[in-house]
């Protein structure tokens, strides 16, 4: 069976489980909204500050929510020996990786749409020059989803998984936070030429970690 059919099979399974259990919709997205709200409480109510730091807060919130999404992605494999099931299934490592990472990416994109709308309305910012913004967001999301899935499988089956993944993942995706925030700032300021280099960096990160994930997922799953 070819790679793309296997990827679609795995991604569809994860997304169908999400559609049934609604964890992203009922828990992860609200978590993101609450974090945005907390930032507003923590910073000076003077809306000038929020407007200036909105991109950074948005992406920090996305990263924190990504920790939950990745955790959930592997929590569903923890029951009923599903990990053994995946190993026995005969599905290849790359397909499993791409399928699970794709499902996480879709959930994160849904979250980002909701959060972006909130940030625009509540923090009072305007999103001009949408093209670099959207492309940068896509690249950043793929990068975070790929790296998260990679560390998710690395820690799968470990009792300390919940506290270990954040410690491992967040330092590694720091460049994504950096690049995505700068790209958004450039888009908000209406200077697309400033954004494109960051979009390029985000794309390189996404491709690189997707490649690493495809290679490493299978071997790591064997040891989980």
């Amino acid at each position, binding site marked *: *069976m070819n790679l793309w059919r296997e990827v679609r099979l795995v991604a569809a399974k994860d997304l169908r489980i999400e559609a049934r259990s609604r964890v992203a919709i009922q828990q992860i997205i609200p978590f993101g909204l609450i974090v945005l709200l907390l930032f507003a409480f923590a910073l000076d109510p003077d809306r000038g500050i929020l407007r200036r730091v909105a991109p950074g807060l948005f992406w920090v919130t996305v990263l924190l929510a990504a920790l939950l999404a990745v955790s959930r992605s592997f929590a569903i494999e923890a029951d009923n*020996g599903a990990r053994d099931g995946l190993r026995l299934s005969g599905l290849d490592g790359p397909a499993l990786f791409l399928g699970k990472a794709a499902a996480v990416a879709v959930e994160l994109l849904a979250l980002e749409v909701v959060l972006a709308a909130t940030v625009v309305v509540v923090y009072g910012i305007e999103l001009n020059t949408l093209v670099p913004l959207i492309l940068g967001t896509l690249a950043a999301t793929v990068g975070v989803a790929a790296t998260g899935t990679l560390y998710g499988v690395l820690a799968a089956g470990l009792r300390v998984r919940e506290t270990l993944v954040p410690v491992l993942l967040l330092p590694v995706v720091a460049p994504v936070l950096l690049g995505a925030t700068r790209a958004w700032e450039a888009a908000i300021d209406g200077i697309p030429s400033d954004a494109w280099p960051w979009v390029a960096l985000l794309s390189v990160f996404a491709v690189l970690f997707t490649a690493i994930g495809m290679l490493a997922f299978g071997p790591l799953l064997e040891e989980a």
Partner: protein
Amino acid sequence: MPAVVRLRSAVCLLGRFPALAGVDLDAADGEIVLLSGANGAGKTTLLRLLAGLVPLYSGEGTVLDHDLAHDRRGARRDLALVGHETFCYDDLTVRENLQFAARAAGRTTAEGDTALERLGLGRLADVVHGRLSAGQRRRLAVAVALSRDPRLLLLDEPHAGLDADGRAVLDEVVRAAPSEHRTVLLASHELEHARAVATREVVITAGQAHLASTDRGAP
């Protein structure tokens, strides 16, 4: 005829404990081999070793022409394990789980539907896995295995939790295996019952088994 399973002095560790401390085993195509032994003797580990889920620490092992020392993943598409867990997802229905298992193994969804009917799960097809009883899950685990159309069927205490009806269905599956070109290795405590379907019995003691075992008649 090449052996479906061949183990010589197989040693397998669980952590640092030698769950298998020297197993010799042969299984030929179409055989139904009963693995018997006390709790903790190593039957589950043996089946998991054959499924390629645990590495071989020392010794030799070949399953479906794949060397367990170097290629323990290779045979997986052609074998199926019925363990203590169902390998299913609580939020998916019985039918969805079966179709996923079938398609993941490169078979068609029709295989999943066939297994569904054969194990008498038809009326549970649209019930989510999380709501099934223990006995129903057992049947589903066997159905998942069958939907993969395996050449080697590894069954770990499959009768546990099944009612009389379920056992009858399972026995039918096991008995039909040779004519469907499947080999069966069955670990069980229900010796009376299992001996009735098996062609041969191998006793596992303290993680070891040797080739001179009771032959209960030609397969």
